[in-house]
């Protein structure tokens, strides 16, 4: 997923009677679970919402490479290094794939990246936290990719065809990353020394709450959800997804032999779900607004990569043009 608080620009969901004939045909198509394809008519707000959501998702894949890049040069074994490198490569691939899906809506990759660098576009808040020990590479795979999958599994049924198909492909790879991440932690807990076990618990303590925040604000504070749900861009509410993630993650946490930094986390027999404590929403909004631990560094790094690479891209374009010229002359 990696999309939080996506603006729809719509104050209220229209009823079918209020819609123009085009809008009504569009909504009926969605209600019938027929995918919207690039050449179909769609309301501008639907298009813009999707561009925002898919670009957020793509930006997240790219910014998400940075916390892992922090450890890829320090991976402890050849196997772990190769795994992490392959994961990072997958993420770059997801980014490219998602930008392509976004471009089917008429958006431009470079323009959207410019918005990111100008602080006008979001990416998942989770990547604004630092990775401080090797267990973070396990915890990011298990919790962060795990949270992403919970959302993306549902998004496989999202109404926009290219986005839905991207999700199907991406989900397969994310599931693999999640298992790999969990296995990193399990190895450290089962075969590691005390220092390694402490790393695992430390990583979980730091990443637990930020992972829960990945699902976005609670439903009561999610003003854009109703429209996104009606368009079937979103298919489940933030709180339902968060609950699903917690319910499936707690048994895995216990199997690891670790704890969550939440004294209120306990099974509720009556609800058939885990109860959990209050999320620090102030922190969530702070991080989203740019005041998280690594926001400045992440954007500065991405901007520098693009700025430093400008002459390289210009050279590639110039070379291609010269070749074309030669071919035309021949």
């Amino acid at each position, binding site marked *: 997923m990696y999309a939080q608080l996506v603006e729809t620009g719509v104050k209220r969901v229209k009823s079918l009677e209020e819609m123009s004939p085009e809008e009504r045909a569009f909504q009926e198509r969605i209600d019938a679970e027929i995918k919207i394809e690039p050449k179909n008519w769609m309301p501008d707000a639907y298009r813009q919402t999707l561009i925002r959501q898919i670009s957020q998702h793509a930006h997240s894949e790219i910014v998400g490479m940075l916390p892992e890049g922090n450890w890829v040069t320090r991976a402890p074994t050849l196997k772990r*290094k190769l795994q992490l490198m*392959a994961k990072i*490569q997958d993420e*770059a691939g997801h980014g490219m794939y998602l930008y392509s899906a976004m471009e089917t809506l008429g958006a431009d990759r470079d323009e959207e990246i410019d918005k990111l660098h100008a602080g006008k576009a979001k990416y998942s808040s989770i990547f604004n936290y630092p990775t401080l020990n090797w267990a973070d590479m396990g915890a990011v795979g298990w919790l962060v990719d795990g949270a992403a999958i919970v959302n993306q599994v549902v998004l496989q049924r999202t109404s926009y065809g290219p986005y839905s198909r991207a999700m199907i492909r991406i989900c397969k790879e994310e599931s693999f990353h999640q298992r790999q991440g969990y296995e990193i932690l399990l190895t450290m807990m089962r075969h590691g020394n005390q220092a390694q076990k402490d790393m695992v618990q430390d990583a979980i303590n730091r990443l637990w709450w930020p992972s829960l925040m990945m699902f976005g604000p609670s439903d009561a504070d999610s003003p854009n959800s109703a429209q996104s749900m009606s368009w079937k861009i979103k298919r489940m509410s933030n709180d339902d997804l968060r609950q699903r993630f917690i319910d499936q993650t707690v048994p895995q946490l216990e199997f690891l032999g670790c704890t969550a930094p939440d004294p209120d986390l306990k099974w509720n027999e009556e609800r058939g779900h885990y109860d959990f404590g209050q999320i620090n929403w102030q922190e969530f909004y702070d991080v989203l607004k740019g005041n998280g631990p690594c926001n400045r560094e992440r954007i500065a790094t991405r901007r520098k990569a693009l700025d430093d690479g400008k002459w390289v891209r*210009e050279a590639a374009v110039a070379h291609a043009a010269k070749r074309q010229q030669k071919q035309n002359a021949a």
Partner: protein
Amino acid sequence: MTDNKNDLIEYLLRLADNAMINGQRLCEWCGHAPALEEEMALMNVALDLVGQARNWYEYAAELLADGRDADRLAFTRDERDFRNTLLVEQPNGDYAVTTAKLFLFDAWHLHTLQALTASKDERIAAIAAKGVKEATYHLRRSGEWVERLGDGTEESRQRMLAAIDELWRFTGDLLAGDAIQQRLAEAGIAADAAAVAAAWQATVEQVFGATNLPVPQPSSYFYLDGKKGLHTEHLGILLAEMQFLQRAYPGATW
């Protein structure tokens, strides 16, 4: 036979360390590449190289039979024990330096691996056969980038010329053979250094020639030797980062 075995271990470590250190430098590009497509490509090349390094280390570890496995060889030897060529340990610099570094290495690497596919040592021949496919792509890719940057804009050409000027002095170390390689080559196990050097020269002349990049005179010996563990100061810092966890938590399982 014992001599032969020691020679073989030395030679395997050279192949392993070359791929490993080159791969490590490419990992440093993660998140910093000039385009998303290049992020993918650089990590892809790095994956191939670290994968090859693992194959060579595993074979070396088996021959050593002193209790060290591939990870111990990669992550606990000190810089004087590393056998990689000086070129691959050089800092990444700008994209022209990285491109020139990769191209000069890839040309040597492909010709070396091609020769090794005919090695009388079947294990070497098998590892090389897999590596040739990868190195063929590596050389095609880095060669195309030399052309792009050498031909693209005035700035890119100047940067490419500066990168070649900066790195050329390490090509002597890259191409030089020694008595160990000579003995193994005569036994039909290793690549012949002179033959690889000649093939390398032809490849460099062809690619540089395509965009009128001058091919410098052969570089002269400058008193360091990667094969003997006499490195530039850059390697120690690279290893300090790469080996951090194995050094800080000796013997731990990851």
